[in-house]
C-alpha cells in the first residue's frame, strides 16, 4: 500500500512539526519580547498537542490497518562531509508510537492542569516555553532513528528539566538543585555522546538500523560483537542511569521536586524519568549480544528499585515519596529490559507513567484526601511496616533507617570522591595563579580568593 505509506510519512512529519512549530512560536515571541496572553499560550499549546496527537493516532491506525510496523520519516542528511555524516531520521514502530502517544496524552493533561495551576504566575510564559522545548525533546528522542537525533532530543529534555527545577528562581534551593541536576545530566550526556561517536567508529553511521538490524523493533538482530555491544551498551546504560536517576545518580530526583507540580509530574513522574528505560528498550537488540551487559542492567535495575523503596519509605513530603516510588518502578522496568521482557517493560512503562502522573497531580490535595479518609474511619490511617524489617534487630533496623534517610550515602560519596577534591585542587591552582600574577605585577593586591573560603559543598560548586 504505497499510498498508505506516503500518508503515514506525511502524518509522521506532522507529529514532529507540531511541537517544533510550538517551540518556534513561543520561543520567537519571547525572543522578540512580544508578550503573549495566557489564553494565547494555552490555545497554541492545545492546538499543537491536539494536532500531534491526532497525527500520531492516525499513524497508529494506518499501521494497524496496513500491517506496516516500521515507518521511516527521513529528512535527509543534516551534515555530510567526508568521514562524518549525520542524518535526521524519525522512526515510527511498535516502541516509538506508543511512547509518542503517551507523551502527547500526558503533556496535554499536564498542559490543561498547568494553565490553571500557574494562572497569573509571573513565570507563566517561561514555564510554557520550557514545556514546549521539553515536548519537542521528548518527541525527538522517542521517535529518533539516528543517535544524533536522539542526542538532540535528549539534550533538550535535560536543559528544560534543569531550568524548570529552578522555576521559582527568587529562592536559593531551586537554583542549587537545578544546577545539581544539570551537572548529573551533563555527565551522563557525555556518556551518550561518547556512545554516539563509538557507534560511528564501529559502523561508520549513526542510524540505529545499521547497528540494531533492519527488522522492526523488537525483532532486530544487532551486528555487533559481544565486546562491542558491552562497551556501547555500558555507555548507553550510563546515559540512561543519569537521565532516569538510577544508582548512583538517584540523588538528584528529590531535588527535582523543587519545580512546580506540573513539571514534577511530567518530568519525574511520567516521561523524563522513563527516558533512560526507553533508551535501553530502543537498543535492546544490542543488549542481547552481551549477557554480561544484561546482567549489569538487571543488577542496576533491581538495586535501584530496592534502594528507592527504602529511601521512599522514610520521606516526609509527598512529592519525594512519589518520586522514589516512581524510581523503584523505573528500576524494575530496567531490570525487565535486562531480562529480555521487552513488551512487559513497555507496558509497565506506559501504565506506570499514567498512574504516577495522576498521583503527582493529586499530590497538592493529598492532605485533604487523608483528612477525608481519617474522618470516615474515625482514626489515623494505619502505617504498616515491611514484614522483612520486623524480623531484623533494632540496631540493624536503625542502620537501614539511617541509610534510607541519607539516601544511600550516594550524594555524599559523589561529593567526597569527586567534587571536594576537584574544587580544592583548582581553588589551590587559582590561588597560586593569583599569587604568581601579583608577584609579576609587583603588588600584594588583596583579591577575593584571599578571603576565607566557605566550606566546599556540591551546592556551592554547582
Amino acid at each position, binding site marked *: 500500500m504505497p499510498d498508505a505509506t506516503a500518508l503515514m510519512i506525511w502524518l509522521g512529519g506532522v507529529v514532529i512539526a507540531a511541537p517544533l512549530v510550538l517551540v518556534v512560536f513561543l520561543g520567537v515571541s519571547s525572543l522578540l519580547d512580544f508578550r503573549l496572553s495566557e489564553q494565547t499560550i494555552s490555545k497554541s499549546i492545545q492546538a499543537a498537542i491536539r494536532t500531534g496527537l491526532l497525527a500520531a493516532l492516525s499513524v497508529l491506525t494506518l499501521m494497524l490497518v496496513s500491517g506496516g510496523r516500521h515507518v521511516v520519516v527521513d529528512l535527509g542528511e543534516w*551534515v555530510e562531509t567526508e568521514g562524518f555524516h549525520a542524518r535526521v531520521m524519525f522512526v515510527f514502530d511498535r516502541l516509538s508510537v506508543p511512547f509518542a502517544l503517551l507523551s502527547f496524552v500526558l503533556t496535554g493533561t499536564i498542559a490543561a492542569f498547568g494553565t490553571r495551576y500557574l494562572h497569573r504566575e509571573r513565570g507563566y510564559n517561561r514555564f510554557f516555553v520550557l514545556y514546549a522545548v521539553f515536548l519537542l525533546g521528548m518527541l525527538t528522542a522517542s521517535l529518533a532513528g539516528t543517535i544524533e537525533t536522539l542526542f538532540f532530543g535528549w539534550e533538550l529534555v535535560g536543559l528544560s528539566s534543569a531550568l524548570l527545577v529552578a522555576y521559582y*528562581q527568587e529562592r*536559593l534551593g531551586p537554583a542549587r538543585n537545578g544546577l545539581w541536576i*544539570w551537572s548529573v545530566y551533563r555527565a551522563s550526556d557525555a556518556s551518550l555522546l*561518547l556512545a554516539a561517536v563509538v557507534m560511528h567508529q564501529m559502523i561508520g553511521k549513526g542510524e540505529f538500523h545499521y547497528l540494531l538490524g533492519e527488522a522492526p523493533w523488537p525483532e532486530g538482530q544487532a551486528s555487533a560483537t559481544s565486546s562491542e555491544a558491552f562497551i556501547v551498551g555500558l555507555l548507553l546504560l550510563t546515559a540512561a542511569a543519569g537521565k532516569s536517576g538510577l544508582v548512583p545518580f538517584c540523588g538528584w530526583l528529590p531535588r527535582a521536586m523543587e519545580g512546580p507540580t506540573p513539571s514534577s509530574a511530567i518530568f519525574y513522574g511520567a516521561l523524563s524519568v522513563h527516558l533512560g528505560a526507553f533508551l535501553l528498550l530502543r537498543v535492546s537488540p544490542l543488549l542481547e549480544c552481551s549477557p554480561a551487559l544484561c546482567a549489569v542492567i538487571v543488577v542496576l535495575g533491581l538495586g535501584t528499585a530496592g534502594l528507592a523503596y527504602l529511601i521512599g519509605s522514610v520521606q516526609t513530603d509527598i512529592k519525594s515519596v512519589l518520586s522514589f516510588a516512581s524510581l523503584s518502578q523505573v528500576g524494575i522496568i530496567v531490570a525487565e529490559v535486562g531480562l529480555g521482557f521487552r513488551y512487559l517493560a513497555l507496558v509497565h512503562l506506559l501504565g506506570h507513567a499514567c498512574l504516577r502522573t495522576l498521583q503527582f497531580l493529586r499530590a497538592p490535595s493529598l492532605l485533604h484526601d487523608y483528612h477525608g479518609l481519617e474522618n470516615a474511619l474515625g482514626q489515623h490511617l494505619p502505617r504498616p511496616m515491611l514484614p522483612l524489617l520486623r524480623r531484623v534487630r533494632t540496631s540493624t533496623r536503625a542502620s537501614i533507617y539511617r541509610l534510607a534517610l541519607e539516601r544511600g550515602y550516594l550524594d555524599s560519596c559523589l561529593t567526597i570522591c569527586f567534587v571536594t577534591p576537584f*574544587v580544592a585542587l583548582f581553588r589551590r591552582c587559582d590561588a597560586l595563579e593569583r599569587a604568581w600574577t601579583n608577584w*609579576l605585577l609587583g603588588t600584594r593586591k588583596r583579591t*577575593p580568593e584571599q578571603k576565607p573560603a566557605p566550606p566546599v559543598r556540591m551546592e556551592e560548586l554547582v
Partner: protein
Amino acid sequence: MIPLPLPWLEAAILIALLGAVTISRVRNLDCAWRWGVAFTGAVLACTMLASLGFYLQEWTGPKTAPSHGSLQVYLFGRPYLGLDELNAPLVPAAALLHFLTAVATARTKMRRFSLTWSLCAEVFHLAKFACTDPMVLIGLLTLGAALPLVEFINRNRPIRVYVLHMSMFVALLLAGGVVLDQTVNDPARNTIAAVLLLAAVLIRCGVVPAHCWITDWFEHGSFGIALLYVISLSGVYAAIRLVLPIAPDWLLHGIGLMSLLTAFYAASMALIQREVRRFFAYFFLSHASLVLVGLQLHTAVALTAALSLWLAVILSLGGFGLVLRALESRFGPLSLHRYHGLYEHSPMLAVSFLLTGLASVGFPGTFGFVAADLLVEGALGANLFVGLVVIATGALNGIAILRVYFLLFTGARHTSSVSLELGPRERIVVLTLAILLLGGGIFPQPGIASRRRAAEAILNPSSSPSHPARPMPRLTILPSPRAALIR
C-alpha cells in the same frame, strides 16, 4: 556581479583606518558613537562583499577575473592580502564582531570604550586575517601586540604581566621569522623556526603556563576592548599560516598535548571562578585551546572541526562576552560569590546569556554543535585519551555556563527602581546573534562544507583550486606536503 571585482578587502581596511583617524578628532560621545557605528558598518559591508566575491569566483570558476590583488599589485608590486577558503568567512566574522560591539556600546560605557582603539584593532584584525605572507603576518602580529598597551596606559593599569608575556611573544616571533626568512630547504632550520614560532603562538593563544596575561588583560582592560582583542583567535591563524606548514609531527603532538591540558585546566578553572571576568577569561581559554587541539590532530575531520569551532567561538563567545558586558554596564563588576537574581529585571539578557553560552558549549541546535561533535569524532579517531579529555572539557564547560547563569539570574530577589532591560540597540545585536547561532545550528551544512574545503586546502594545498595567486617562493620548496599552504 559588477561591483564584486572591486577591491573590497582593501577598502574595508582603509575605511577602518579612516574611521579611527576621524573618530579620534570627535569629542562629542554620541557623535563619535554614530560615526563609529557607520564606519564599522561600512567595514562589515565591504568585508561581506569581499567574501561574497570570493565565493562567487569559486562557483563561477576561471571565467571570472580575480577580484582581489589588483590594487595591491599597483601599490606594492604583488598582493599581500587576499581571501582563500580559510579566511573568507573569518574576515567578515571579525568585522561583524567589531560592528556589534560598537552598536551594543551603552551610553554608560562610551567614555571607557574607545571606538578609535576598536577601529585600529579592526585594521590589524582584518589585515592579519587577510594576510598570507609570513613576514607581513609576523609584522602585523608584532605591531598588534602593542595595542593593549594603549588601553593599559589610558586606564592607568599595571602593564608588567602583559609586557613580560608579549615581549617573549614578540622576541620568539621575530626570531622565528628571521630563521624562516633565511631557510632554504633546510629541515633542521625549519624545525628551529617552527619551534620558535610555535612557542610564540602558544604564548599568544594563552596556553598553560603562559596564560596569565589573558586573565590579567580581562581584569584590567575594558571588557569590550579585551573581548575584541582576543576573541578572533589571531594566534590560531598564526599557527595555521606560520607553524603548520613547517612543523614536524612531534612538534604538532607537543602542541596538542599542551592545548589539551590547557583546555581541561581552563574549563576546570572556569568552573570554580568567583568573578565574572576571570570566569570568561578561562572559559575563552578553554575554547581557544580546543581549537588548537583540533589543529594538531591534523586529520581532515579534526581540522574541519577546529576551523568550524573557531568560527563558532568568534560568534558565540563574542556574543556571550557582549552579554556579560551589557550586564556589567547595568550592575557593575559582578561577583560569583553569591546569587544575584537578575532575571526578573532583565529576562532578555538572561535568555541571551543562555543562548550564546549554550551555543559556545556546542548545545544541539546551535552553531557550535556540529563542530563539537566533529571534534570529538576526530579526537577519538586519533586517540582515545584525547577524545575522553575533549568530552570531559565540553561537559565541564556546559556545567560552568549554567552555574554562572544560576548565580547571576536566579537564587535571590533583586530590587531596582529603574528598568534594566535591553535597549533597542542591544536587542538588535542579540537578534542578529540569535539568527546566526540558531541558523548556523539548524542548517550547518554550508558552513561545514566551507570549513572542510579549508581543511583540505591546509592538508593538501595543491588540490585546492581556490587559492588566489600569492607566490611564496621561500616555502614552496619545503619537503612537507603542508608547506605549500603558504604560497
